[in-house]
C-alpha cells in the first residue's frame, strides 16, 4: 500500500477516439485498470482508517493533556495546606512531579494538534517533528510518574512524628531557614489539629512517650499535650481545660492526625503517577501507529 500524492492516470479512458480505434483490445487494459482502481480504493480505505485512528488517538491525547494540567494545578495549589510539612522534611518532590505534570499537559495538547495536522496533510517533516517532540515529552512525563511514586513511599508515620516532635513550637532556632520551617510546621499542625479534631500523629500519647521541642517550653503538668488537642467551643477555647488535661473522653481529641495528612498526599501522589502512566500507555500506541504511518508515506 503506498500513499501517493498523485492519482494513477487510467489512460484507456483518456480520449474517446483512441477507444473507438482499439475496440476490443482495450478490454484487457480496462480490466487491469479497474483492478488497480479497486486496489486503490481498498488501500484508500485503509489509509482513511489509519488516518482516522491516528486523529482519534491524538484527540484523546490532547484531552488527557488538558486533564493532566488541571489535576496538577489542583495539587500544586495545596488545598489542604500540607506543603510546609513536606518542605520541612526536605522531601517535597511530589510537588516537583506535579509541576512537571502541568507543563507536560500543555505540551501534550500542543503536540496532539501538531499530530492531527501532520496526519491530515500526510507530511513527513511534520510527523517526524511530532514523533521526536512526543518522545521528549514522554521522557519528562515518565520522570514525573516515577518521582511521584517513589517519593510517596517516603511518607511514613514515623517521618511526620519525628518532624512534629522536633519542630512543633521549637523556640531556639538556628538560622532564618530553620525559623521559617519551624513556623510553617507549627502553623500547619495547629490548623490540622483544630480543623480535623485530632492530636499528634498516632494520638495524644505521642507527646507523653517522647520528649519534644514542645516539652522544653511547656511543662508536663500544665500541658500533657497541646491545648489544641482539647475540644473547643465556638470561641476557640477548650470547653473544659481540666478535663482535657486529665484525658477524659469528650473533652479532648484522642485520634491521631496521620489519616488527615496521608489521605491527601496519597491521593496526590497516586493521581499524578497512575494517570500519567495511563496517558503514557495510550501515547505509546499512538506513537507506534504514527511511526508506521510515517514509514508508509511516499515523498
Amino acid at each position, binding site marked *: 500500500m*503506498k500513499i501517493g500524492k498523485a492519482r494513477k492516470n487510467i*489512460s484507456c479512458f483518456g480520449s474517446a477516439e483512441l477507444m473507438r480505434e482499439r475496440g476490443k483490445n482495450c478490454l484487457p487494459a480496462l480490466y*487491469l485498470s479497474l483492478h488497480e482502481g479497486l486496489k486503490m480504493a481498498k488501500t484508500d480505505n485503509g489509509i482513511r482508517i489509519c488516518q482516522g485512528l491516528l486523529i482519534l488517538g491524538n484527540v484523546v491525547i490532547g484531552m488527557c493533556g488538558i486533564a493532566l494540567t488541571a489535576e496538577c494545578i489542583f495539587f500544586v495549589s495545596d488545598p489542604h495546606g500540607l506543603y510546609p510539612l513536606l518542605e520541612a522534611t526536605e522531601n517535597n518532590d511530589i510537588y516537583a512531579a506535579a509541576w512537571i505534570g502541568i507543563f507536560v499537559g500543555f505540551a501534550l495538547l500542543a503536540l496532539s494538534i501538531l499530530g492531527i495536522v501532520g496526519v491530515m496533510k500526510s507530511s513527513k517533516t511534520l510527523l517526524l517533528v511530532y514523533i521526536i517532540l512526543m518522545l521528549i515529552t514522554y521522557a519528562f512525563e515518565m520522570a514525573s510518574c516515577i518521582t511521584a511514586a517513589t517519593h510517596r*513511599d517516603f511518607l511514613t508515620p514515623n517521618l511526620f512524628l519525628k518532624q512534629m516532635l*522536633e519542630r512543633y513550637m521549637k523556640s531556639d532556632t538556628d538560622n532564618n531557614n530553620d525559623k521559617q520551617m519551624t513556623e510553617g510546621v507549627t502553623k500547619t499542625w495547629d490548623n490540622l489539629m483544630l480543623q480535623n479534631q485530632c492530636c499528634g500523629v498516632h494520638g495524644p500519647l505521642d507527646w507523653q512517650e517522647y520528649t519534644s521541642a514542645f516539652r522544653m517550653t511547656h511543662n*508536663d503538668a500544665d500541658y500533657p499535650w497541646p491545648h489544641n488537642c482539647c475540644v473547643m467551643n465556638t470561641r476557640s477555647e477548650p470547653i473544659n481545660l481540666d478535663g482535657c488535661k486529665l484525658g477524659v473522653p469528650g473533652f479532648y481529641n484522642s485520634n491521631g492526625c496521620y489519616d488527615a495528612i496521608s489521605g491527601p498526599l496519597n491521593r496526590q501522589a497516586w493521581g499524578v503517577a497512575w494517570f500519567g502512566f495511563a496517558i503514557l*500507555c495510550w501515547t505509546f500506541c499512538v506513537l507506534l501507529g504514527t511511526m508506521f504511518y510515517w514509514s508508509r508515506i511516499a515523498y
Partner: protein
Amino acid sequence: MHPLLLLLLATAHGLDKLSYKPTLVGGNVEGRMTGSTFVLEQPRCVFDSYSTANIWLVVATREGMDAFNDSAQPGMPEWSFQRFPTNTSAYLTLGAMQYHYGCPKPDRELTVLRVGSETDCADNISVPNCNGPLPGPGPYWVKFLALNGSEPTATTEWSGPITLKTAREPQSIPGTGGARSGAMIAITAILSVLLAILLAALLATLCSSEACGVGSFRPDAASIRRYNTHHVYDQPAARL
C-alpha cells in the same frame, strides 16, 4: 513493760488503720499517668466515721514509706513539697475536709484527685502543701491520713508503687524511610520497557526509509510503477 506501754500509747492516740488501699483511676482516663502527675481515685465512703477530720494525702519514696511517722503535721517544713525528695522523703498535700469525700459516690461525675497539677506554687516555700509536679519518675507510694486538728485519727494502707512515664528521645524513633512499594516498581519497569520499545521503533523507522548503512532493496517497495499504456498493446496488433 515496754510492749504494754507502746500498746497504751497507740490506743491513747486512737489511730485507726483502715484497710483501704489508694488506687489509680480507671483506664479510660488517658492522662492517668504522665511524666510528672498521676490521678488517684477519691477515697469516697472510707472516712465516713471521721466527720470532723481533715484528710491529707501522703506522697513518699521507698525510704519515706518505711520511715513515715503518723504524727506528721502538714504545716511543718519537714513535710513540705519543696524539700521533696532531696531533704525529705515524704510530703503531705491535697488536704480536704471529710465532707468532700462523702458517701455515696455521685453517679455521673468523675471523682478523682490529680497529684501534681499545681505548678505556680512549686517553688514557693510559703506553700508547703503545694500539689506540685513530681520531680522524677518515682516510684512513689501514697496513703491517706485523717487528722483531727493535729491528732492523727485514721490512716489507710500504702498503695502499690506508682512509677511515672519516662519519655524517650525522638532520635530513637526507628525507620523514618519507607520500603519500595510494588506499585512504584511496576510503574518504573513498564514505562522503561515502553520507552525502550519506542526508541527502537523510531530507529527502525528512520533506518528503513533512508539508507543508514545496510538496507535491502525490496522490489515491491519500488516507487516506479509499470504503466500499461495503449502503445504496448497497439504494436503487436499493428504488426499482426
